[in-house]
């Protein structure tokens, strides 16, 4: 029998639902159609051979019931068996056979026991091995990882966010131990780390620019996402290169069952995705997203320009494209080719032309362009029944450029009296060529070995500027002497996930890395070790140690994510950044699997951190590499609590974090230790999903945390008066860094999803009770009511100086519609 392996993944994430519980009504509908609906709700893959579903029609009605229960009812009497293993639902024809009991694992329940050997033999493991699956499928009482989680596209959609733009990073911000940073932005500060200490990987390949719109949105289009593995405490040996966290984003494969997709129209952007088969062995999936800002702003600019002599030019947009083609070569081999392109463009300028006498013409243009291109190809190959390899080749190009052109022409009687033209072009890019191989080997039942390695050729151009100035033919051209940095990075790792006994499980690994730049090689060895002890079925205690090493860091000025934020390699006097982290966790899962409670503690020591030194801006940029930066250390510690309800009409989680984070730099804050900016002592997150009916769902996210740290300078001193122009300057008296804590931050975000036949509406409310959270403190003037002074016969102002809290994001509604086909 020719066996065609059907692998279906979520094509669209439509009806928002909690993974695990589903609602569905079907009467004698083809089983494949019903699967598609279930996939949309759960994000799970259905793995089966095509022949077993031929002509099978099912009737089922369920309201918010566990998937397993629904499937059991669906296939009752059809002779089809199913097994839910992690994110895969494996179907096969029923056989009368003697099922050998699997090796019992402590606390394992029937609903998630490993597939029986005989089953695996009848349906070769290839069914699940030919695709990359998350290592975090099992409940956390079973896994050995601490502080790790898997998130599906449904999880992301279920998190209410600003402007209704589902965002991976903003979903992760709701996790304990993760701080959002600046309100409303897609920043991520994990366990006291910095924003550049998180590794974002797209199908196994790191990308650098992960934001759109100055950091307001992340660059990951949720339409293209299958799932995300997120690690923040115990790091698997595979991952290194960043200090604080690792986010492995896996993109969707196209459906084999037909062409399906969605089109979304939101306030800020539109998105379109489609996927389907190309022949019997190939699938495709394309997801495109583009912002509307240029369209929205065009009328306003036209109105402004109608009444002004200066004609303003403005256009901003961002877009991202994910395209992927999968091919199943044979039962053992599958491959894919994918492309990601993310881009932000900003074009501004003014044009002034004194038409009435045609004597003066002025034109200024500024074009900014930044983003990522990623092209990759991968093969997943089942070398033996026990070993699978994933081979990846990729090229990534991070780019950022600014072109400014300013021109003025003065005329008289048609003749040019004078002309001045200045042009400036700035480039900043990183090119990476990557090859890597990752293997998963299961030599014995109780042990899973993962090993692999890779090589990356980096080419960094931190910033290069070219300037040209032309005044009436006199031309001055200058160009920075900045040159490219070529660097080679090699890494290799091995880890063993070993179930030592029914109660004890361990994961030991080692990541070796070498970074070669400017003729020097820097070596790093990152040991990883974690244990899980399960004294009783529903309880687990875990401990872990991990070391992480980072060879590149990002220099940012301000809180916005801008194209001038440069990734630079570790060079000169700086050493690779390292972090040592220990973590301890306790976990409980209710017998029915509906509830999870976890407590995780961590202590992290960070070394050779690189930051701008005090008053770095006084140093010319050309000295950036050394003079503007300084190296130091940091510590972070804390405890994360989380209570999660996974199934039922009302699901979600409540988390609380108690955390400390500080920094010590010789050339900052007079060498004294100071709290990190996002040293939020207490953080509470509540994320609730209420399935009101099969068609209506309400999501609520409340977050509250101790205010961010802020360097508040209340005092002024008199200007030296070296010249008249600068006598009025308000000079702030320096204070210890981050000396002030802003008021407690809290807000509630809501979203309501209403499904109809063709798709669903989403209504969002950011900061629902409009709490004006302070992001900073500034100096201002209180405009008091003045009075008329009869004696002097003049008006006496009652204005006086005050300190003011700045808050930026009030209540913001949003609406979007997603059409599915």
């Amino acid at each position, binding site marked *: 029998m020719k066996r065609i392996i059907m692998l279906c993944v979520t094509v669209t994430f439509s009806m928002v639902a909690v993974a695990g519980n589903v609602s569905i009504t079907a009467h004698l509908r083809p089983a494949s159609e019903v699967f598609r609906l279930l996939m949309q709700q759960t994000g799970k893959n259905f793995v089966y051979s095509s022949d077993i579903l031929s002509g099978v029609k099912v009737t089922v009605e369920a309201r918010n019931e566990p998937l397993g229960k629904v499937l059991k009812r669906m296939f009752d009497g059809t002779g089809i068996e199913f097994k839910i293993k992690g994110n895969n639902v494996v179907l096969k024809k029923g056989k009368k056979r003697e099922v050998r009991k699997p090796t019992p694992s402590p606390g394992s329940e029937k609903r998630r026991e490993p597939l029986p050997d005989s089953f695996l033999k009848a349906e070769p493991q290839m069914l699940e091995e030919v695709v990359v699956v998350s290592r975090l499928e099992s409940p956390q009482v079973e896994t050995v990882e601490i502080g790790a989680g898997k998130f599906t596209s449904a999880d992301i959609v279920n998190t209410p966010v600003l402007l209704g733009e589902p965002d991976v990073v903003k979903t992760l911000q709701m996790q304990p131990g993760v701080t959002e940073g*600046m309100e*409303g932005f897609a920043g991520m500060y994990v366990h006291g780390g910095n924003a550049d200490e998180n590794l974002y990987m797209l199908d196994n390949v790191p990308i650098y620019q992960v934001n759109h*719109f*100055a950091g307001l949105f992340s660059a990951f289009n949720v339409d293209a996402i299958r799932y995300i593995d997120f690690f923040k405490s115990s790091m698997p040996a595979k991952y290194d290169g960043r200090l604080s966290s690792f986010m492995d984003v896996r993109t969707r494969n196209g459906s084999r069952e037909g062409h399906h997709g969605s089109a979304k129209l939101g306030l800020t952007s539109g998105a379109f995705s489609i996927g389907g088969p190309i022949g019997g062995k190939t699938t495709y999936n394309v997801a495109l997203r583009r912002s509307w800002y240029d369209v929205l702003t065009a009328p306003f600019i036209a109105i402004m320009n109608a009444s002004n002599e200066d004609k303003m030019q403005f256009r*901003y947009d961002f877009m991202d494209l994910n395209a992927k083609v999968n091919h199943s070569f044979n039962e053992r081999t599958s491959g894919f080719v994918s492309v990601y392109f993310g881009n932000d463009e900003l074009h*501004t300028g003014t044009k*002034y032309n004194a038409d009435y006498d045609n004597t003066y013409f*002025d034109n200024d243009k500024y074009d900014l362009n930044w983003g990522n291109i990623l092209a990759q190809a991968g093969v997943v190959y089942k070398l033996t029944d026990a070993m699978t390899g994933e081979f990846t080749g990729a090229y990534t190009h991070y780019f950022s450029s*600014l072109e*400014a052109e300013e021109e*003025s022409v003065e005329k008289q009687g048609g003749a040019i009296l004078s002309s001045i033209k*200045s042009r400036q072009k700035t480039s900043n890019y990183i090119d990476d060529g990557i090859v890597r191989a990752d293997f998963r080997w299961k030599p014995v039942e109780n042990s899973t070995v993962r090993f692999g390695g890779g090589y990356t050729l980096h080419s960094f151009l931190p*910033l290069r*500027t070219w300037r040209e*100035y032309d*005044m009436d033919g*006199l031309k*001055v051209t*200058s160009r920075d002497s900045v040159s490219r940095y070529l660097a080679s990075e090699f890494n290799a790792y091995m880890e063993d996930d070993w179930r030592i006994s029914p109660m004890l499980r361990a994961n030991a690994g080692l990541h070796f890395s070498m970074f070669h730049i400017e003729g020097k090689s820097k070596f790093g060895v990152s040991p990883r070790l974690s244990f899980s002890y399960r004294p009783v079925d529903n309880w687990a205690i875990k401990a872990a140690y991990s070391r992480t090493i980072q060879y590149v860091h990002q220099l940012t000025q*301000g809180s*916005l994510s801008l194209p*001038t934020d440069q990734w630079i390699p570790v060079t000169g006097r700086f050493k690779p950044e390292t972090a040592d982290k220990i973590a301890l966790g306790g976990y409980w899962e209710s017998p029915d699997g509906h509830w999870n409670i976890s407590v995780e503690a961590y202590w992290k020591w960070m070394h050779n951190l690189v930051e701008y030194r005090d008053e770095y*801006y*006084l140093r*010319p940029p050309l*000295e950036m590499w050394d003079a503007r930066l300084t190296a130091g250390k940091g510590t972070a510690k804390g405890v994360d609590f989380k209570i999660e309800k996974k199934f039922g009409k009302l699901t979600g989680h409540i988390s609380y974090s108690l955390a400390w984070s500080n920094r010590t730099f010789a050339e900052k804050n007079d060498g004294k230790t100071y709290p990190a*900016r996002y040293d939020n002592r207490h953080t509470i997150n509540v994320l609730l999903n209420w399935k009101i009916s099969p068609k209506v769902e309400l999501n609520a996210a409340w977050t509250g945390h101790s205010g961010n740290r802020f*360097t*508040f300078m*209340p*005092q*002024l*001193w008199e200007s*030296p*008066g*070296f010249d008249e122009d*600068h006598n009025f*300057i*308000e*000079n*702030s008296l*320096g*204070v210890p860094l981050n000396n*002030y804590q802003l008021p407690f931050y809290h807000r509630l975000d809501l979203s309501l999803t209403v499904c109809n036949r063709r798709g669903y509406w989403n209504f969002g409310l950011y900061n629902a009770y409009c709490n*004006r959270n302070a*992001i*900073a*403190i*500034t100096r201002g003037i209180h405009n008091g009511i003045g009075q008329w002074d009869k004696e002097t016969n003049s008006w006496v102002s009652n204005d*006086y*100086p005050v*300190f*003011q*809290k*700045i*808050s*930026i*994001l*009030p209540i*913001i509604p949003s609406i979007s519609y997603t059409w599915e086909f």
Partner: protein
Amino acid sequence: MGVLNILNKYLLNVALGLTGCVALSGCYTDFTPDIDDRPVLCLNSLITAGEKISVDVTRSWVYTDVNGEKNHQVNDAVVTIFANGVRVEDDYLPKEGDKIRIHAFNPTYGEAEATVEVPVAPILKDIECVPTLKEGRVHEYEYTFCTTIDFDLGIRVTLEDSPERQNYYHYGLDHYAEFVPEGNFSEGELSGEESSFIIRDGILQYEAEPIFSEHISEFDAMMGGDVYGFTFFTDRQFSGSDYRLNLQYRNVQAIITCTPDNIEEVCDAGFIVCLSSVSESYYNWFNYCWQIYSGAIGDLSEVGLAEPVKGYSNVSTGAGVVAARSTAKARIPLDNFFVPLVRKALDKLSGNKE
């Protein structure tokens, strides 16, 4: 270029506008913080070689303290000056190379001190000046003739840098003339005197000299920060060697009032290139001012999108600037440029009359 300079903050506004799209309306709420705000002594002084040292002693004040803003002079502070480690009197005239330490004490506000080295004046050589005539006009004014000459001016001067230390420089241009009238005259206004020479310096094309832009980062450039008004630079790019400054002025104007008999006398005028070696503190102070008002970091911090910027200070308390400078000057006479033009203009006027 003036229009271009007005666009200084343009890009920043755009960037902030982007965030403003979601911010909809920034909100400011008055509040009184509970924070330590003890005032400290502030010292300000600009030390020039060959001139007596003057020190201004004040105290810091909380921004909301209206009285403190108006009255923060500290008159009863004890100020002591040391030159090269030796205490000197008030009438001491500092020399190039002197290390000056200023110490002040007040029982209420404590003590403050700062040290600065008086730099050595730079060496200027190979001065070249090229005026380019744009337009010459002349008209008769009672018994005298007034000639207006519009021209562009290109100056090139070589600076010899000392390799021994990090050097900081400030460029300026002055002018001289024998018949400079008293008072200020707006454009088109004449002095009313029989013989006078008025010079309007024109507009320096800052972009024409890349060294003036060395303090501008790409971040600043992207945000619209430009070099306008900033003529400080360091020797980081040419330490120990010569550097030739390229200075271009546009729209320079000379208004010369004279009689046919005293043309040479009145036209004895020109420019003075002033190049100062300045202390690091002096450079840093103006650089800081630029960062605050033209750089991105000042704007971002003002709206809470970057860390606040403290005032630059080299005083122990963090308040005040003690700086020093030594200036080298070089005259550029332009009588050879003015005299023929004035004479030609007068001849033309006489011809028209005939």
